[in-house]
């Protein structure tokens, strides 16, 4: 392990999340010097997959616990500004760059490129609070971006080794935590290093690995290609820059159509747009609630003007189902971003690792024999059937759409056969197996629009099963729990008086960062999750473990229903 580092004064602590790392100073691994209280130490650790920058932020008074953070997915390729802004990628982790090749197609050469900077916490406010509590914060960037599970695990493990070699003096315990892909990375690190890691907090973690995540996206995009935009390429992108152009073209098509959905009742393929898109999302297991549309509240005009009057006046949404349909228009955008840009990156990774030649497919999610009609559960059909049928664009719409989707079953041209070599590579990427080894706490939004909450419950089931198989005399207390944040029960879609559509800003404010969206929490929820993990790690009895759970259950916006379970992940392969 080669080490490079630089050191920064305490004044930078408050701006930890905004720091730009300068050129690192090279030092030898043997010259480990403890990071002083109240300072930020930065550098890079080299591993077999490349160099990983790290950052350590020390509190003024260290409580002995180091929190090692792994950040979430970052798109590996430059994103045109015209796409990055609607996708919310113009954040601190992405830097504006000039990319002249984008100018002809996207009207500007401005693009956003992910950096490999380390983060030590999901937000500045959370970092500052944890430092006040005396935690030392550490985090590693990854040698590559995209689905960087292997790189993240290596970076995290190297950082832990560096900490244990003296980089943080008086370390009593190390807990790992991360968001999204970082949750998967943290769980993997913990599972592989139970003697070095005291506990793990996976937040909105994609715990079940890449296959379910990309199957979700494939379901959305196959439905889109069939019922909405037949020109989508969807998968098996051409190697290199040509393929990147294809992927950007797909993404632009999806975002453009979503942007015009309100005025486009019929898709280019001739199907009802809101219904086709809602069907895509339901079959993929995406939530029917978004930050603006709660799937519950209809426009007050329907009560005051009557149904016909409000419909004629163009007021929306008309019903709970209509609210869900618009929510799905919001949610599919996020799923498509991962499904397109993430897929391109993964296919290129697979080509590189497996040395797959350009004339061979790099697709790793096979959908040739999927029965899409089976992905719509009877309960979804019952709950959303009226909404899916509420159109005169075609007759008997739901059955017609499902029939069209299933009509291509078995076709290797209309569907996407996988290359077994690609499948093996993706299945071999770093991911936790679900073996219970260290105290584990998971938290997720109930309505996660990118990583369905079913990831968390499925992983919890694995941990529970693993614990039950362990030797009763040796296994100790089961220190694992999953928590789900919830939105306001009375709904959050808000209308200005007489408005035809909701007020987005008011609605988002009413939602209050709880329960809906990907890795969206109140600072209190995140901080209490860390505190609950710490209590769980320190618990010497079953009662103390229960007390740790109760502490988090008592947090505003955390579902107190111990028996709650989110919808299970969809399993396309089981429909065959």
């Amino acid at each position: 392990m080669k080490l490079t580092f630089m050191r920064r004064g305490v004044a930078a602590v408050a701006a930890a999340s905004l720091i730009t790392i300068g050129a690192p100073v090279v030092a030898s691994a043997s010259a480990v010097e403890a990071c002083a209280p109240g300072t930020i130490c930065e550098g890079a650790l080299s591993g077999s997959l490349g160099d990983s920058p790290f950052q350590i932020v020390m509190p003024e008074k260290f409580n002995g616990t180091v929190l090692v953070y792994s950040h979430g997915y970052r798109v590996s390729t430059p994103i045109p500004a015209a796409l990055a802004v609607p996708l919310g990628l113009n954040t601190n982790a992405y830097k504006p760059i000039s990319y002249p090749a984008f100018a002809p197609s996207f009207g500007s050469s401005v693009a956003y490129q992910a950096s490999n900077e380390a983060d030590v916490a999901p937000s500045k406010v959370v970092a500052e609070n944890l430092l006040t509590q005396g935690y030392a914060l550490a985090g590693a960037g990854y040698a590559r971006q995209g689905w960087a599970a292997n790189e993240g695990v290596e970076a995290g493990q190297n950082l832990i080794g560096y900490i244990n070699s003296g980089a943080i003096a008086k370390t009593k315990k190390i807990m790992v935590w991360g968001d999204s892909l970082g949750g998967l990375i943290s769980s993997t690190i913990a599972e592989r290093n139970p003697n070095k890691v005291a506990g793990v907090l996976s937040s909105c973690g994609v715990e079940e690995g890449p296959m379910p995540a990309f199957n979700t996206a494939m379901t959305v995009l196959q439905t889109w290609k069939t019922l909405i935009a037949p020109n989508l390429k969807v998968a098996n992108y051409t190697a290199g820059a040509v393929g990147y152009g294809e992927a950007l073209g797909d993404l632009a098509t999806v975002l453009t159509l979503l942007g015009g959905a309100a005025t486009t009742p019929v898709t280019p393929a001739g199907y009802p747009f809101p219904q086709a898109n809602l069907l895509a999302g339901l079959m993929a297991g995406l939530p029917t609630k978004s930050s603006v549309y709660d799937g519950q509240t209809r426009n007050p005009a329907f009560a005051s003007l009557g149904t016909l009057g409000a419909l004629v006046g163009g007021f929306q949404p008309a019903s709970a189902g209509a609210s869900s349909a618009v929510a799905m228009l919001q949610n599919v955008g996020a799923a498509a971003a991962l499904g397109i840009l993430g897929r391109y990156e993964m296919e290129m990774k697979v080509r590189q690792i497996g040395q797959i030649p350009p004339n061979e497919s790099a697709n790793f999610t096979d959908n040739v024999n999927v029965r899409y009609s089976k992905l719509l559960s009877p309960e979804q059909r019952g709950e959303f059937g009226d909404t899916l049928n509420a159109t005169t664009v075609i007759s008997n719409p739901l059955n017609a759409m499902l029939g069209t989707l299933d009509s291509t079953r078995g076709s290797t041209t209309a569907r996407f056969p996988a290359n077994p070599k690609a499948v093996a590579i993706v299945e071999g990427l770093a991911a936790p197996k679900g073996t219970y080894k260290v105290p584990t706490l998971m938290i997720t939004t109930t309505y996660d629009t990118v990583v369905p909450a079913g990831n968390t419950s499925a992983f919890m089931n694995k941990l529970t099963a693993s614990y039950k198989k362990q030797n009763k005399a040796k296994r100790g207390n089961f220190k694992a729990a999953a928590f789900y944040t919830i939105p306001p029960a009375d709904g959050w879609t808000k209308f200005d008086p007489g408005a035809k559509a909701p007020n987005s800003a008011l609605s988002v404010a009413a939602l209050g960062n709880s329960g809906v969206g990907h890795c969206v929490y109140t600072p209190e929820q995140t901080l209490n999750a860390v505190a609950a993990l710490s209590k769980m790690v320190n618990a010497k009895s079953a009662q103390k473990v229960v007390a740790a759970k109760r502490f988090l259950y008592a947090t505003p916006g955390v579902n107190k229903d111990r028996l709650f379970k989110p919808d299970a992940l969809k399993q396309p392969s089981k429909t065959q």
Partner: protein
Amino acid sequence: MRFKFATGTVALGTAAALAFATAIPAQAADPGVTSNKIVIGTTTPLTGPAAPGYKDIPVAAKAYFDYVNANGGINGRKVDLKVFDDQYNPALAKKGTSQLILRDKIFAMYGALGTPTHSAVVQDLNRRGIPDVFVNTGGASFDNAKKYPMTFPYFPSYVVESKVMGYYMAKDPALKSKTKCLFYQDGEFGDNAKAGFKAAGTTFATTTSYYSGQQVAPFSAQISKLKSAGCELVVFFGVTSATAQLLGTAAKSGFAPTWMITSVGSDPSVLKGTLGAAAGPLLKGIYTPSFLVPAQDSKNAYVSQMQVIAKRAGLEWNFYTYYGINTAYVLAQALKAAGKNLTRKGLVKALETNARNFRSAAVVPMVINSKSHQGLTGYYMGQYNASSEIDRLTKYVMVATSSSSGKAKQAAFRPASPTKKLLP
């Protein structure tokens, strides 16, 4: 002294053990049951567009339970029915169900209404082991004891109903030679109907459909299609508000076929309210299946006693009041059969083993056992009279299953008399 001391220790230990033993009941009580109360819950539209008619059901059920409570309750416990207004909104049904489970600690769900609304919660109720008794929808998907072991439909599924309609149309000399057409609501409702007619071997000259909510505007295009196809008998599978729109639009366009209307689209009180003075002539002669003794048959012992309960509670006598009291009466019998040591498992067992002994105003057999939770299994054919009431047309009943295969068959069924004072 030493011996005495030792004896004292033993005695003390035994007493402590006994005290401990008595502190923990032999079987931990399920939520919603105390020594003197049973809490049950329901979600149903009390407000909003779907409320007319349906809102009367829980009020009537409450009136019946009040009557039972005033007469000593069930095995010494009074029934407390908690009602949540879901406005026929699945998201609100989820919220309400959660509230009933977590806040009100219900023992069982009873009479939850609607396919979209109940589809949103049925898995959760079953996963938690909460009895989900007498669901108020004919959606055939709920008739699945293997998948939903805690769920018990009450009225026959739409598949059963369409099989029965098919059977009757093939048998009745006045109908069998008519050119038949089908008008249905898209979705599970219509899919169930088509499945039943297919199993019955019924063919239609043409079919047309509407989507839920479309009935706010006239069905002009659909009527035009039916008219041009020369339909002489139109079977309609839609909700009551759509029936009113259909009959109104058809009358205005001079289209007057023989109509056969699904039971859930046939409520006389709602139709009369919507169609006004035109209801009488428009409804007269329309065929519609039914499974309860006609509501206007005051000579019937069930109807007369239920009318008394409704009147004492100040309720208007209509089909929904009648239906609400009737299902509450059956549930009360099931709760009594579950015994004094009331548990959720015990209620399920009571339903699965005693259903054939439950009394009610239904004139068709009820089938509930460990393999089937079908509930009521068939219909008689009814017909609107000049007073817009539904008369019983057939002395026999027709029964079928919710399976996508198998036809309806004629059956003789003689319901047992009501229990004394209509108490469980």
